């Protein structure tokens, strides 16, 4: 028997595969049955309605894409009255992603979504488009600590904190989120980038800078997930550039308890369905009975060829 389930704190997921916030809506039900997923993670929303950024909002890159969607949001009321009831039809843990401009607003919103039907609050403290020059709470340990502490006291739902790769102190930020009460870390959001159309000399995105996602950022997000897993004792959910079975296994081996899939779903909307089947087949072929036998099993580095203690 192959057991695909994984534990994120108190919560047991049927399998470690879930969508990344902002890349998933009910529209995907046009393509496959969404009840197979480990969790449903919704697009970040804010308390007040917002319009998001000017177009163009996406562009192609050599090995991925960049977006400056921003956080268009229909607000809290719409969420509670319109979106929430839709998701109740699934027997899959529902993760709502929230964002706000201050710690207080964040806490108030967390409190407001602490309602039946919601299994987890994911705090997007890392979206690089919203704040000036891409700065966000998640850039520094102190601002992370402050916002997470506020969130923690506002809700008793499991609290996942989504980190940003646009930081110079990933370990300190991860530890700050843990010590402030996060139940799990989602690592990571998009990497801030810029692309220019040289024929028009204009930025390719309406918002000038945007967030890079897809295969191009996989080694960066994987590194950060590894750093977070190794330096905290709460579960880490890996996210960034996952498109293949190997990508997913890299995150699990690096120490992640589950993964989120974003951009790959745009290239191929059946990605998560395929990954689930491939993971099960791979585990069976390799005699691996549970996900726990994969998580955090990174081996020592080196090929033993080079003695580095000499010139």
């Amino acid at each position, binding site marked *: 028997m192959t057991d695909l389930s994984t534990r994120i704190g108190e919560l047991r997921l049927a399998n470690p595969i879930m969508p990344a916030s902002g890349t998933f*809506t009910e529209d995907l039900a046009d393509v496959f049955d969404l009840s197979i997923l480990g969790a449903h993670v919704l697009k970040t929303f804010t308390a007040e309605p917002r319009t998001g950024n000017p177009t163009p909002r996406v562009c192609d890159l050599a090995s991925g894409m960049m977006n400056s969607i921003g956080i268009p949001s229909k607000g809290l009321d719409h969420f509670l009255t319109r979106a929430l009831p839709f998701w109740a039809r699934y027997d899959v843990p529902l993760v709502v992603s929230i964002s706000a401009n201050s710690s207080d607003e964040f806490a108030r919103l967390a409190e407001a979504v602490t309602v039946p039907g919601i299994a987890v609050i994911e705090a997007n403290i890392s979206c690089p488009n919203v704040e000036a020059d891409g700065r966000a709470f998640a850039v520094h340990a102190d601002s992370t600590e402050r916002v997470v502490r506020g969130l923690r006291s506002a809700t008793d739902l499991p609290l996942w904190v989504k980190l940003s790769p646009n930081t110079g102190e990933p370990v300190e930020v991860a530890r700050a989120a843990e010590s402030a009460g996060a139940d799990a870390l989602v690592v990571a959001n998009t990497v801030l980038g810029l692309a220019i159309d040289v024929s028009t000399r204009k930025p390719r995105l309406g918002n000038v800078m945007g967030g890079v996602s897809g295969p191009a950022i996989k080694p960066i997000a994987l590194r950060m997930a590894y750093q977070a897993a190794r330096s905290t004792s709460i579960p880490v959910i890996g996210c960034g550039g996952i498109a293949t079975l190997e990508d997913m296994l890299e995150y699990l081996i690096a120490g992640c308890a589950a993964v989120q899939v974003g951009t790959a779903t745009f*290239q191929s909307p059946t990605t998560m369905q395929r990954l689930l089947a491939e993971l099960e087949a791979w585990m069976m072929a390799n005699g691996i009975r549970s996900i726990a036998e994969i998580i955090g099993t990174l081996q020592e580095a080196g090929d033993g060829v080079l003695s580095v203690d000499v010139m």
Partner: protein
Amino acid sequence: MSMVTPLGHGSPRDSFLPRCAEVSVRVERNDPVNEEYRLMVLRAPDAVLNCSPGQFFQLLCPVAGGDTPFLRRPMSIYGYDRAAGLLQFLYKVTGAGTRGLATLREGDMLNVLGPLGQGFSMPNEWRRLMLVARGVGLATLAPLAKEAQRLGRSLTAICSARSPELAMSVELFRDCGAEVIVVTDTDGSSAPEALRILIEDRIARDGVDAFYTCGSSRLLRLLQDIGARHGIPGEIAMEQQMACGLGMCQACVRSFREGDTIRHRRVCREGPVFPIAEALA
């Protein structure tokens, strides 16, 4: 945020059945039709052939010759034939993605996702139809002409082009029993003021129940104006940069007039077809 028009637009969620699929299909033909455009014919399974005119597919363009298109590229359905198992696209080679498409040869495989979006509506009271389009827009409107013929509507197709030899799909429209009028830049007949006279003249002579158009803001503004004057409704197929094509990413929003307010709608989901009166040029 949903809006109600005769068919399709912004229908409530529950009317969406799992109805599109991601499939790898065989290229049967992929030949130039003129200097700029190519026609691609694919052998497609039934699962993706429940199409309606105005819908589109997202094509996973091959990586070729240094080009590395990453996101899928949206393409209107140029033709579909469920009985024969065929799907057609008419496309202009413009950048990395379409250059990749152009490298495909008979027997190669192409991954397509569709059909997507809301197509054109054709309520019973729309008997005398007028279609006005240019360039690639004519590709988008081609299956509409077939539908009009099937439903026994009369159709006038005004095909705009730089010069007469670049006017596309003229034969196809004629074969569907449409009256075809070619207007061109060369003789000045495609200019808005010339078009306005032409269209007003038709309205006066034969009557027009509805307009269909595509893309161009110049045509949109003209038809909005004429439509408002004469109380003639109509629909436009719009374009916008896309990532997912399914409604998930909100990349493809445009602004629409909805009563007194302006709202964003997703071209891939609520569209690509919208009421002419609501579109913002």
